[in-house]
């Protein structure tokens, strides 16, 4: 990007914009860390998506698991069993398979809550930025108040109150309660970013041209402003995906998330924690490592995306 900066303004815009895709690709390939992060992320996605097909065992199928296989150490140690590459937990479930199924749930919660948070945040941010005045003040004060509480506390509160008010079993509701509580605690960042960009875009002449034509404000917001503020939102979404996965793991670790019968990565870590001091380290270390690798990879991708897009955000 910087290499074409000095070329005359007219020419520069043309070249820059025309080659946005290939420039993005170029900066991607130039950074080895990013390529590695992308590979790790892809492996996790494929593993999670195709878990029923490629996982060596099905940890939820009671006919396949046997209590006789419980607490087998990883395959390369003395007591290891070649059937269980990363060992088994206390109920005889294969850790590798459990991680693949667990990543499925972690990623699903992550994606759904990020989408929910983005929808709420973008809508409120657009309205606050475009309408301005009193509406803006109200929305942004609510956002400020929410920011004073830690996200996990809010998620815990929502989670707790849903279970208290609604008469549902944990197995049925756990997934969606998690998504809603994480989504509601993460919208503020989107709202702030979108509001900021909207304030800039609102004063651009193409928005004024649309107003002179007489286009309805809602249509201006959706058709004109929204596509032009999506760049930063994409970056936040990537970084928030990692945050949401961690939050899910934390909540599951605290015991308010996904129940142990359908373990997510966080639940696996919590189960394994009980065995950490009796020497069965593999139950918690491998899921923990998997979680760290996934979050790190997604975060690195988000960082790269932010740097790659930033010079063009005007």
């Amino acid at each position, binding site marked *: 990007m*910087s*290499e*074409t*900066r*000095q*070329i*005359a*303004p*007219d*020419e520069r*815009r*043309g*070249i820059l*914009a*025309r*080659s946005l895709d290939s420039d993005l690709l*170029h900066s991607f390939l130039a950074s080895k860390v990013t390529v590695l992060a992308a590979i790790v992320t892809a492996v996790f996605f494929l593993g999670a998506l195709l878990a029923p097909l490629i996982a060596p065992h099905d940890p939820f199928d009671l006919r396949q698991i046997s209590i006789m296989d419980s607490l087998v150490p990883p395959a390369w140690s003395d007591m290891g069993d070649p059937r269980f590459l990363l060992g088994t937990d206390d109920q005889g479930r294969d850790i590798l398979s459990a991680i693949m199924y667990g990543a499925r749930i972690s990623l699903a919660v992550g994606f759904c809550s990020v989408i929910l948070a983005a929808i709420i945040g973008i809508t409120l941010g657009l309205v606050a930025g475009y309408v301005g005045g009193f509406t803006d003040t109200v929305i942004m004060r609510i956002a400020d108040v929410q920011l004073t509480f830690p996200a996990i506390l809010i998620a815990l509160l929502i989670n707790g109150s849903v279970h208290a008010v609604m008469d549902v079993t944990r197995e049925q509701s756990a997934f969606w309660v998690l998504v809603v509580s994480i989504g509601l605690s993460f919208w503020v960042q989107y709202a702030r970013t979108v509001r900021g960009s909207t304030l800039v875009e609102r004063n*651009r*002449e*193409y928005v*004024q*041209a*649309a*107003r*002179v*034509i*007489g*286009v*309805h404000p809602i249509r201006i917001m959706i*058709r*004109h402003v929204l*596509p*032009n503020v999506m760049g930063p939102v994409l970056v936040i979404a990537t970084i928030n995906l990692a945050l949401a996965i961690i939050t899910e793991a934390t909540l599951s670790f605290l015991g308010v998330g996904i129940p142990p019968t359908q373990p997510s990565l966080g639940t696996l870590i919590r189960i394994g924690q009980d065995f950490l001091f009796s020497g069965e380290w593999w139950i918690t270390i491998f899921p923990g490592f998997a979680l760290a690798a996934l979050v790190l990879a997604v975060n690195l991708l988000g960082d790269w995306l932010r740097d790659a897009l930033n010079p063009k955000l005007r």
Partner: protein
Amino acid sequence: MGLLDIRNLTVDFPSRRGTFTAVRDVALDVQRGEIHGLVGESGAGKSTIGNAIMGLLEPPGRIASGEIEIEGRRIESLPPEEMRKVRGKTVSMIFQDPLSSLNPLFTVERQLVETIREHNRMSEREAKAFAVDLLDQVGIPKPAERVAQYPHQFSGGMRQRVVIALALCSNPDLVIADEPTTALDVSIQAQILNLIRSLCTERNVGVILVTHDMGVIAETTDRVAVMYRGRIVERGATRKVLGDPDHEYTKSLVAAVPRPDVRLHRFPMVSYIEGPAREFEAIDLGKHWLGQGRRDASNDRHENLIELRNLEMDFETRRSIFPSRRRHFRAVDGVSLQIREGEIFGLVGESGSGKSTVARLISGLYTPTGGEILFDGTDIARLGASAERRPFQRQMQMIFQDPYSSLNPRMRVADIVAEPIRHHNLASGGAERRAVVEDLLEHVGLGREAARKYPHEFSGGQRQRISIARALATRPRFLICDEPTSALDVSIQAQILNLLKDLQEELRLTLLFISHDLPVMRQMCHRIGVMQNGRLCEVAETEDLFERPQHPHTQELVRLMPRLDYLSRRGLDMEPAHA
């Protein structure tokens, strides 16, 4: 041997898509006590030459070949530390934007003293005295008091004087002024140019004046070099180059300059720049889409399409829940004027005079604090529901100043132009809409292939054509043009002005044309209103305004217009003076 000698200078910007040569094989010399102009359109490489002399080429730019000598000393190959000394001591630079070339957090004194002591062995006290002396030399009143102030306490013109004082701190031999007056109003521009002129003679320094403005070149420089695509195509005494140009490019550039003293029928079509706009077929309004839905001329039509009565607009500068503590800035103060059906009405004034606010009030972007806006007899300022506004929104469109921000970068040109048609249901279906869009694009000289592209694939002038196509897509009667060409190069400006004139005559449009540029006004408008500080000082027929200005402010503006009387008039299609 001159003060500055440049021989065979070539500057490259290598990138992974190949090397862009910004300056190719340039030779230039500047003597002491002379102002040497460097003129050309955007992208010609004129600023790059200045940066190359200063050693300020941004990476990956590099001097590929050639020599730069200052008083016989080669400087292009000096190590960075040596170059830094040359940069401050013998060559200094004046930038375009006085606001961003001063640090807002430091007082003027601190910035001056720091620079002075960097280059001269002086005590703090001596440096302070010298700073006051410099401010006095650049014509700042009460320099001893003002030196302690911050940049924001100075007006735009005064700030540019401070920047010039800053450039003089080291007693340089050569000053490079890169568009020093582009951000300033005409009256301040004249003062700054006079200042540069007199400093040049008094201190016997050489000045390189980089600009795109032919008026500035004609008024100020002794010699001039004309640049085109990185090369100097013509060079010599300013009077010779502009009065009797040899090169084809110079000829077409000179022909495209709006003249303050004659009115042209149309600007000559120049073939040298940005592929000529294609000729379009004349429109028969009776049959063409653009003519449909027009009311017949015989109906209850008012003579004045637009009438402003005592229009007022206040902006809040301080908000408060207590009315007594609120502060207002009155941007438009009791403006009354009439725009006749079918005429081009000009509104001229310096920045902050309220001319753009008037445009925004008429177009409905702002709601006036007081007064009436009559459109064909109806007060549109007080219309409430959007259903009532609709018919007026359709009849009135606006063309904006900045072609880079007036088109949504995420929409295809076809969708941009189709939006008003879709919104006002002016086409019976998708097929007709597409046909109309293609026809409009063809008509503004772009061709129907343009519809499938995105705005960034077009140059500034082409984008302005897209804006015009979008404005025409509602079949308007009234078009507001808010500085439509001030962001464009002079040759492209000529084409856009021709297009607007053609369309106005052909479609019998009424135009409100807003500009700060009087020569442009003279070419375009039938009548002109002059604004100052939110008030309308004078309205007159164009020729009367230029020949016999009444109001003192108008007289001042007309007097400050650059005199371009010695410019070549070859090939100009002049209109006979109005009787």
